[in-house]
C-alpha cells in the first residue's frame, strides 16, 4: 500500500466514523422551523399577492418557461404544502418524502419569477437537498419514535463535515465578494445604506459617520473570512457563535435582509459538537465506541466529491468572464454575493418597426410591478427577457415586426449613471449571449464617503 492510498483509506475511515446524530437532528429541526416561519411570514406579509398575483409578466429561468404561476388559491395551497412539508421535516415525519416535497414546492415557488431570486432561497434549497441525503431523522423524530427497529442515534462523520463545508463556502465567497475597491476603499454600498438609516433609535445619528461605514465594511470582510475558522476551533467556538449572533443580528436590524440572518444563525449550529443538543438538555450522550462503523459506497463518495467540487468552483465562475460582475451580473447568481451592491437603472426600450422605421419608447413599468422593475433594471438577462416579451406584444397588437433595443442607464454604488447595454443592439437577435453586448463599467469611482459634508 502506497502512502497516498494509505492516506485515502485513513481519510475514508475518519469520514465514516460514527458520531452522535443529535446536532444533525437539531439542524433539521431548526431549519425546518425556520422555513415554516419564513413561509408563514410570506403569507401574512401579503407577498403572495404582491410577488405572484399582481404581476402580469413573470421572468422565467431558462428551461423552466413551462412552470405555471397558479391562481391565488393554487398559490396558497402550494405554499401550504411547502409549510406542511417543512413542518414534517422539522418533526421528522416521513422525513425523506417531506424533504423532497419541500424542495420541489419551495424551488418551484421561487422559480415562478426569476426576479424573486435571493441567495438565501438558493441556500435553503441546497441545505434541504443535503438533508435529503442524510439520516437526519435518526434522532428526535416521529419516524424514529414510530420505528420498530432499535434506535440508531449515530450518523457518519461525513454528514456533519459536508454541512460545515457548505456553510463555509457561503462565508468564504461572501468574503471574496467583499474584496474589491468599492467595498474596501470606498466603504460602498455600506455608507449609502447606513446614511439612509438615520431614523433608527439611539444609533441612528452615528450611522452617517464615514468612519463607521469603513469599520463595518472591513469588519464584515474579516468576519466572513474568519468566522468558519473560529467556529471550527473548539476553544473559540462559543465566542465565535456570539459573534455570529451579533453580526447577523446587526444585519437583520439594519437592512431589509429578511430570513438570511436567521438561516445563517441556524446553519452555524452545525459547527458545535455533535452532541451539543443532548448536553444542552442534559440528555444521555450515547457512547460512540459501541456504535457500528459506517461504510461509504463508491458512488456516494464520488457524488460527494463532485458536489463539493461544484460548490467550491461554481461561485467563482465570474472570474472567467470579463468585467466587473457587480456591473455586468455575469456570474452573479448562485455565487453568494450577498448585499454587495446598490444598483438602480432607468430602462427605456426603443422599439423600431423594420418596415418604416416608426419608433416607440416603451417604459417597462407598463409590464412590471415596481419590485420586478427594480430588480430587472440592473440585470442584462432579465432586460433581454422582457425585450422578447415586448416583441411578442407588438406582434399581438398588430404593430408589425420590430427591433427592440434598450436605453439602459444604470448607477452602481452611487456612480453617475452609465449605459449598461449597447443601445444599438437588437435584443431580439440575442438570446443568452447578451453579455457580449454589456458595456464595461466606466472607470469612475463610487460615491466616496470621505467627501461627506464638503
Amino acid at each position: 500500500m502506497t502512502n497516498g492510498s494509505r492516506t485515502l483509506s485513513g481519510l475514508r475511515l475518519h469520514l465514516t466514523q460514527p458520531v452522535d446524530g443529535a446536532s444533525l437532528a437539531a439542524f433539521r429541526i431548526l431549519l425546518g422551523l425556520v422555513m415554516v416561519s419564513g413561509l408563514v411570514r410570506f403569507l401574512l406579509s401579503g407577498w403572495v399577492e404582491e410577488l405572484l398575483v399582481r404581476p402580469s409578466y413573470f421572468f422565467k429561468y431558462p428551461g423552466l418557461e413551462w412552470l405555471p404561476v397558479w391562481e391565488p388559491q393554487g398559490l396558497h395551497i402550494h405554499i401550504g404544502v411547502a409549510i406542511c412539508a417543512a413542518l414534517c421535516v422539522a418533526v421528522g415525519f416521513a422525513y425523506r418524502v417531506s424533504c423532497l416535497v419541500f424542495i420541489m414546492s419551495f424551488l418551484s415557488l421561487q422559480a415562478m419569477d426569476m426576479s424573486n431570486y435571493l441567495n438565501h432561497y438558493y441556500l435553503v434549497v441546497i441545505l434541504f437537498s443535503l438533508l435529503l441525503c442524510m439520516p437526519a431523522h435518526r434522532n428526535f423524530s416521529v419516524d424514529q419514535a414510530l420505528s420498530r427497529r432499535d434506535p440508531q442515534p449515530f450518523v457518519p462523520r461525513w454528514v456533519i463535515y459536508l454541512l460545515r463545508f457548505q456553510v463555509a463556502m457561503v462565508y468564504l465567497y461572501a468574503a471574496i465578494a467583499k474584496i474589491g475597491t468599492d467595498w474596501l476603499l470606498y466603504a460602498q454600498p455600506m455608507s449609502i445604506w447606513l446614511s439612509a438609516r438615520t431614523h433608527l433609535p439611539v444609533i441612528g445619528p452615528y450611522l452617517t459617520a464615514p468612519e463607521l461605514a469603513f469599520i463595518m465594511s472591513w469588519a464584515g470582510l474579516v468576519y466572513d473570512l474568519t468566522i468558519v475558522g473560529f467556529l471550527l476551533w473548539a476553544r473559540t467556538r462559543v465566542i465565535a457563535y456570539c459573534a455570529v449572533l451579533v453580526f447577523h443580528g446587526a444585519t437583520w436590524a439594519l437592512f431589509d435582509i429578511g430570513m438570511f440572518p436567521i438561516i445563517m444563525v441556524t446553519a452555524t449550529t452545525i459547527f458545535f459538537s455533535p452532541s451539543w443538543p443532548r448536553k444542552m438538555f442534559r440528555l444521555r450522550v450515547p457512547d460512540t465506541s459501541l456504535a457500528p462503523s459506517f461504510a461509504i459506497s463508491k458512488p456516494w463518495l464520488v457524488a460527494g466529491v463532485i458536489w463539493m467540487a461544484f460548490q467550491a468552483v461554481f461561485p467563482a465562475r465570474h472570474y472567467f468572464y470579463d468585467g466587473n460582475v457587480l456591473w455586468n451580473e455575469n456570474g452573479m447568481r448562485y455565487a453568494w454575493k450577498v448585499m454587495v451592491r446598490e444598483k438602480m437603472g432607468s430602462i427605456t426600450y426603443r422599439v423600431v418597426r423594420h418596415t418604416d422605421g416608426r419608433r416607440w419608447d416603451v417604459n417597462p413599468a407598463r409590464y412590471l410591478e415596481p419590485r420586478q422593475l427594480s430588480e430587472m433594471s440592473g440585470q442584462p438577462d432579465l432586460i433581454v427577457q422582457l425585450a422578447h416579451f415586448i416583441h411578442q406584444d407588438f406582434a399581438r397588437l398588430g404593430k408589425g415586426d420590430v427591433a427592440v433595443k434598450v436605453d439602459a442607464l444604470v448607477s452602481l454604488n452611487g456612480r453617475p449613471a452609465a449605459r449598461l447595454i449597447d443601445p444599438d443592439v437588437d435584443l431580439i437577435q440575442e438570446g443568452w449571449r447578451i453579455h457580449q453586448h454589456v458595456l464595461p463599467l466606466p472607470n469612475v469611482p463610487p460615491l466616496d464617503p470621505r467627501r461627506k459634508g464638503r
Partner: protein
Amino acid sequence: MLRPTLFSAAFGGFFSLMLLSCGDDNTSTPNTQTEVDMAVTGGGMDMGVDTPGDELATRVDLLDSIAVNVYSPTYVEFRESLRTLDAAVSEWAQSQTDEARTAAQAAWRTSMTIWQRAELMQVGPAGAQGRRVGGEDGRDRIYSFPLSNACRVDQELVAQRYDGETWTTTAQLNVRGMDALEYLLFHTGDENTCPDVVGINRNGEWTAMIASGAGEVDKRRAAMAQVTVSMVAADAQVLVDAWAEDGVYRTALSAGSVPFENTKQALDQVYAGMFYLDRMVKDLKLAKPAGLSMECESDTCPNAVESRFANASKEHLVANLVGLRHVFEGGDDDSYIGFDDILEVEGAAELAATMRMKFEASIAAVEAIEGTLQNAVIENHSQVQNAYDAVKALNDDLKTQFVTTLGLSVPQEGAGDND
C-alpha cells in the same frame, strides 16, 4: 496551533491594508477630488464631518423644509387662488357674458398652474388610497387626469345631478375636479363630446336640453362650474389643513411619526411623489401625444394632450417641472434645504449641479415648443421630441444615481426581502 497563527496573520494583514489605504488613496480608479480632499485632511480617517448628527439633522431638515416651504404654501396658494376662481365663476353664472367667462377662464389658468406644481407632491392625503401612506385620493378628487372624461360632464349637464344635495359625496372623480372645470369653462357652443351611441345623444336628451331655452347649456355649465369650484375648494382645504402648522402631516413628515413608520419612509414617500415625472410627465403628457408611446395608434396623437380645451398643456408641463424643482431644492428660495443640499452633504455635489442644469434644460425645452402642444406634435415634432429627451435625461438621473446616492426605495418596491 496553526489556525490561530493564520487568523492573526489574516487580521494583521487586512488591518495593515486598511491603514495603508487610508493613508494613501491609492485606488485603481483615481478621483481628483478625492485626492484633493485627502490632501486637505492629511489623509487618515479624518473625514471632515463635525458631528455624527449633522446628516440626520440635514435629512430631517429636508423633510421639514419640504413640508413647510413647499407642500404647505403650495396648497395654501392653490386654495387662495380658488377664491378668485369662485368669484369669477359666480360672476359668469350670474351675468352669462363673454367677459365674465374669459375672466373665469383666466382664473382657472392661474389656479391650474399652481395645482400642476402640486401634482409632484402627492404625499399623505393627496396620495392614492392603498398606494401611499395616508393616501385619501386627495389629488384625484381635485384633478383626475388621465381619467378626465368630457362626455361624462356632458351627461351630468343633462342629468343636472350637480344640483342635488348628495352630489359632493357621490360625484365621480372625472366630473368633480379641475379637469371637469376646464371643460365647463373652455368648451363653448352647443355641441357635446359624446359619441352618438351614448344615451344623451341616442335618446335626444341633449337636443331637448338645447331646445329648452336660449343659452341653456351655458347656464348649466356655469351652474355646474360653481358647484365644482366649491367642491375643489373643500378638497383643497383638506390638504391645507393636513399640512398646516397644526396639521397632522406637517410634523409627521419630518418626525417620521404616524402615519409614517420613520423618516426613511417619509423621505421615500416624498420621492414617490417625485416619480410623477416618469409615468405622467414623460410618458403620458409628452410621449403619448408625440406618438412615442404604445398607446398612440397613429404617428402622433394630438388629442392625447393633457389640456385639450384650455390648450394649456405646455404651461402645465412647465409648472410640473417647476413643482418638482421646488421639491428638489426644498422651495423657491436658495436658503431652503432641499435634496440638492443633501446630495452635497453626501459628497455628490456634481449630481446636484447636473440635476439643477437638467431642470433648467427641461423647462427651456418645453418653453421652446412653438404654439400649443397639440399643434406642435404635428407641426413642430422635433421640438416636442427635444422636450421629451430633456425630461427623460432628468428622469434618468432621478431614477438612478439619485436613488443609489441617497439609498432611497423606489415606490412600492418594498415587497419581499433582499440579500
